[in-house]
């Protein structure tokens, strides 16, 4: 079965090339993936990400439930509207999914999880929510449009009712606000994204999404496909579930240690395994690579290091840098940055040298220090 978002016909009318994306018929590009990538870095672009899953959690003990469910600490969220990125782990410390959770009220949190993991996520969440009396409601009635790029916020502001515009303008990064559109449609606007640019992810009723998309189009926001979204997020140093981590990988092995909070006395699922891994110090590691030679780094290519072999996870041609970039998972052990790391990638039988770099590779339109050579 192929699933379609309500914007499916709109994408086709805009000339999109459609591909299967985890069972969803989604636009990969509308002509040129590279042009769409640059548009988001330099101006603004919009993505239909309605295939993603919105889950509302309600009940007096929701925060207590999330303390157990998530590897990051929900108690970092002290002000209503604030958001947190976290992994949800299984008992073995493997990543079931990565997600964003919003604190909306003491008895109301909202999570946005991946499309490809929808069913197992919902089953896992429901299984553990029961003990806390937390109600789990999948919001299939909501669509999501991400508007990203340096001009994105200004362009969205034009579609928001006058009374809400000032408050939206003050909205901080990684926080969300309920506003009303000029057409009276309720919008849940989050200053989040998956591109490394400023912008919003807008959750709104499915019934209003086509009109909202067309209003953005009329305001000058061009559509961008999931192809550009992938190169943008990799440049931004963001993981893709299923490619960079899955249930056989702990957050420590996916460069997500910064999302794990080993705060005192919080017994979250998977914690024991993570603590053991940390104590042993032998976890595999995820590193960033840049290739100065021509060619493209791709998923599955063999990576050779002084500590043993690994493989490319996400790899692509970076339109911003004009060269290939990648994440790779390699054995534990220090690797010097730069060419000194002596890391090589096997490309069609040829060992090609790559540089080890810190990521993000690109942030707010700019190559980060040490990336470009």
């Amino acid at each position, binding site marked *: 079965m192929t699933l379609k978002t309500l914007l499916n016909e709109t994408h086709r009318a805009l000339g999109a090339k459609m591909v299967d994306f985890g069972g969803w018929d989604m636009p*990969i590009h509308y002509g*040129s*993936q*590279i042009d769409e990538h640059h548009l988001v870095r330099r101006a603004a672009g919009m993505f239909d990400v309605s295939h993603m899953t919105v889950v509302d959690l309600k009940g007096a003990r929701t925060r207590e439930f999330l303390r157990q469910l998530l590897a990051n600490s929900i108690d970092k969220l002290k002000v209503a509207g604030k958001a947190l990125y976290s992994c949800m782990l299984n008992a073995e410390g493997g990543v079931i999914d990565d997600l964003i959770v919003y604190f909306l009220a003491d008895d109301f949190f909202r999570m946005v999880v991946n499309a490809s993991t929808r069913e197992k996520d919902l089953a896992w969440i429901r299984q553990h929510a029961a003990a806390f009396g937390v109600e789990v409601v999948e919001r299939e009635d909501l669509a999501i449009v991400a508007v990203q790029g340096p001009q994105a916020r200004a362009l969205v502001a034009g579609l928001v009712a006058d009374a809400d515009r000032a408050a939206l303008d003050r909205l901080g990064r990684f926080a969300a606000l309920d506003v009303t559109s000029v057409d009276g449609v309720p919008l849940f606007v989050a200053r989040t994204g998956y591109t490394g640019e400023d912008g919003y992810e807008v959750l709104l009723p499915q019934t209003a999404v086509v009109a909202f998309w067309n209003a953005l189009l009329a305001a000058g926001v061009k559509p961008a496909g999931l*192809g550009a979204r992938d190169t943008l997020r990799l440049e931004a140093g963001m993981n893709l579930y299923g490619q960079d981590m899955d249930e056989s990988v702990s957050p420590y092995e996916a460069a997500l240690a910064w999302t794990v909070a080993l705060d005192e006395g919080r017994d979250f699922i998977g914690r024991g395994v993570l603590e053991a891994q940390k104590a042993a110090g032998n976890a595999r590691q995820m590193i960033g690579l840049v290739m100065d030679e021509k060619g*493209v780094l791709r998923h599955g290519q063999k990576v050779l290091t002084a500590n043993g072999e690994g493989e490319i996870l996400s790899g*692509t*041609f970076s*339109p911003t840098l004009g060269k290939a970039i990648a994440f790779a998972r390699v054995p534990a052990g220090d690797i010097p940055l730069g060419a000194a790391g002596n890391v090589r990638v096997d490309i069609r039988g040829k060992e090609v040298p790559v540089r080890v770099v810190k990521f993000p590779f690109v942030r707010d339109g700019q190559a980060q220090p040490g990336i470009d050579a």
Partner: protein
Amino acid sequence: MSEIPGDLKFLKSHEWARVEGNGRVTVGISDHAQGLLGDLVYVELPGVGDTVQAGNAAAVVESVKAASDVYSPVSGTVVEVNEALADKPETINEDAYGEGWLFVVEMSEPEQVNELLGPDDYAELLENDDH
């Protein structure tokens, strides 16, 4: 989609061949193929003097999303490659049947061109692919 030039022959795997009349064949990928691949970012060409076999991989084209082998439509020796593609692989997207050519083969078995698809057969193949 641009028109398929009438003087070209094709492989089912979307390579085109233009018989130049001096025992040489110019090879590229079809406009349909470049559309499937999307924005091309890298081309790995054979070396001048390399021997290529009909139906074997002779070059690699890579787009942002995928790498694809390019099969030589005929056997022979590579006598020329399109060096300009190294800096401008997007030329293939812009002009697959013209400036986006990949390499020229001096044929060792000229009768092989008779086994290639004509433009109408190739067009029909694409038509059937769409259903």
